[in-house]
């Protein structure tokens, strides 16, 4: 079991390294660089100085090496090119928690709501809850978050003045953005949960459970839900990453000081350090959620648990042979 987990963690770091390095090379390969505009009219020597200050005069591979060296020795992601004197990790530490809060709340509420709607739809197939679920799922898929954001802003803030239009402060500022964030996961998970539950409910072992005389509630709780969790959990990792990306639009619509604005600005101004730093953060979030999903498999599905155990045994039995 420990071996399985260690293996996953090592993979996680490997993926992180490859993705970040690739982004690093790619963003540096785009024509134009962040300093061109600033240094255009400066004398040659000053210009070279500028480039040297950020290490941009070195070959790309050297720059990449320096990037990792700086990160591994000092834990720093480098100095921003657009905001001289400020380190990229400062932005992350300061603004990422806001984006994450928004994303996590949206995900948690959206997934739970979507799953409940989906289960309800599946259990009352071709009845009102089913049609309602389908309707919500369709709306959620069709309406982009920014359209919904504009609508709720008009309705809840302009017309009824129940919530502040935009800004950041207490919990009250939180409600509308999170509401907009939940729409997409509600739709996705409602649809997905419905088809998964319908699939499981037609399995033979549900009939076995019924033949034991168990009441419907217990069958759904014990036999149906557990078996639907696997595919749902698999979808969670991409959802986490997707929601963080999606929160950028919501952030800008509701003027929330999250990472979103900085990310867009960083790309537009070719702020290499910031782009790589943000990408680092998202990749890390993604691979980390994949790791969590892998670990959740262990909890949910005994077949995966057993496989993990057998791997260890196989490796253990190989060792004496090699000696």
């Amino acid at each position, binding site marked *: 079991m420990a071996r399985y987990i260690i293996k996953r963690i090592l993979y996680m770091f490997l993926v992180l390294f490859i993705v970040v390095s690739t982004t690093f090379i790619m963003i540096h390969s785009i024509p134009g660089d962040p300093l061109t505009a600033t240094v255009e009219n400066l004398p040659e020597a000053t210009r070279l100085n500028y480039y040297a200050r950020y290490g941009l005069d070195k070959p790309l591979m050297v720059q990449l090496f320096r990037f990792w060296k700086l990160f591994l020795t000092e834990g720093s992601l480098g100095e921003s090119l657009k905001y001289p004197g400020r380190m990229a990790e400062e932005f992350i530490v300061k603004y990422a928690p806001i984006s994450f809060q928004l994303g996590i709340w949206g995900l948690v509420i959206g997934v739970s709501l979507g799953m409940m709607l989906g289960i309800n739809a599946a259990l009352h197939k071709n009845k009102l809850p089913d049609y309602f679920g389908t309707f919500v799922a369709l709306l959620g898929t069709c309406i982009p978050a920014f359209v919904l954001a504009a609508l709720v802003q008009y309705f809840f803030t302009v017309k009824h003045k129940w919530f502040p239009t935009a800004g950041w402060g207490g919990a009250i500022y939180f409600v509308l953005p999170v509401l907009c964030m939940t729409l997409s996961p509600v739709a996705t998970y409602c649809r997905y949960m419905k088809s998964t539950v319908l699939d499981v409910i037609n*399995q033979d072992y*549900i009939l076995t459970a019924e033949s*034991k*005389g*168990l009441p419907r509630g217990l069958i759904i709780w014990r036999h149906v839900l*557990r078996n639907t969790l696997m595919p749902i959990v698999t979808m969670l990792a991409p959802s986490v990453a997707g929601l963080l990306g999606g929160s950028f639009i919501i952030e800008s619509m509701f003027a929330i000081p999250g990472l979103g604005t900085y990310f867009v600005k960083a790309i537009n101004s070719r702020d290499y350090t910031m782009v790589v730093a943000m990408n680092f953060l998202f990749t890390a979030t993604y691979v980390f959620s994949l790791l969590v999903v892998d670990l959740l498999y262990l909890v949910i599905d005994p077949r995966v648990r057993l496989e993990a155990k057998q791997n260890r045994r196989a490796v253990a039995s190989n060792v004496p042979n090699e000696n």
Partner: protein
Amino acid sequence: MSEHLLEVKDLAVSFSSYAGKIRAVRGVSFHLDAGETLAIVGESGCGKTVTVKALMKLYGNSAAFIEEGSSILFKNEEVVTMDRKQLSKLRGEGIGMIFQDPMTSLNPTLTVGYQIAEGIRFHDKSVSKEEAYKRAAELLALVGIPSPEERIKQYPHQLSGGMRQRVMIAIAIACDADIIICDEPTTALDVTIQAQVLELLNELKEKTNKAFILVTHDLGIVFDFADRIQVMYAGVILERGTKYELFDEPHHPYTWALLNSVPSKQSQRKGTLYSIQGTPPDLMMDIKGCPFADRCVYCMPICKERMPEETPLSETHSVCCWLEHSMAPKVKAPAAGGEE
């Protein structure tokens, strides 16, 4: 009032579908006493499984329903009108069921022990968790699974097909049901395992006073296991009798054909296996006469017009066929073994 453990009268089960109503079971009546074994045989889709599932109103997610006028008396209680609570008690405590495919009939995410113990604990709330698991282990030992204490902690995928079917049997008998329904219990197993599972079922039959209903299309296992046999076709029972009566002097052309379809030494030597021509009737249609008429070699004009009455031949043996009528030509059953 019925003196039988189970008495089924005019049971009709239909499925509603977009294309119309599928009348899978079209009025069957039979009874069952404690300690005896009834076999229901017939080809695929003739309503065997639907009939036995109706006995505990077990339709899962399908659109099946029991038609009005049907009656199922279990210990003098009407099953058809039972509510959920009564059904819960009936299932497991009154009637247990063994399903066809042990590979898919056990929940892959729960331990074998849990799946046996949950029924025990649900039906008898006074049983503690430990006791229930202890009973589960005893049951596993009873159905012939070695080292049951370890097995109860295992998951279905760690057991072989034969063992899983033994677990299914343990689940069916866990709450001491009076009737055990075996729905093609050996169809999904390979031949050697089939023999072992049948042996186990036979042992259970001898040890306990349970009644068994065996649903199968395998006539080979019927003779070893059953006391009485009823032959079903297109939702009706065409012939019924003790196993000796049915095997030694079958009266219905369909029973003849079924018996002839069993591979024998003769048919092996000739290299051909007898099979019944044609296909069973469409169950969405109304069938006016005998449902087998279209495929019957001895079909007479009356056969397509009216369903024959059940003609008793002995106290236990009866048949639904116009050939039994005094005006019908005397037809002799073809000798078994496909020598037509």
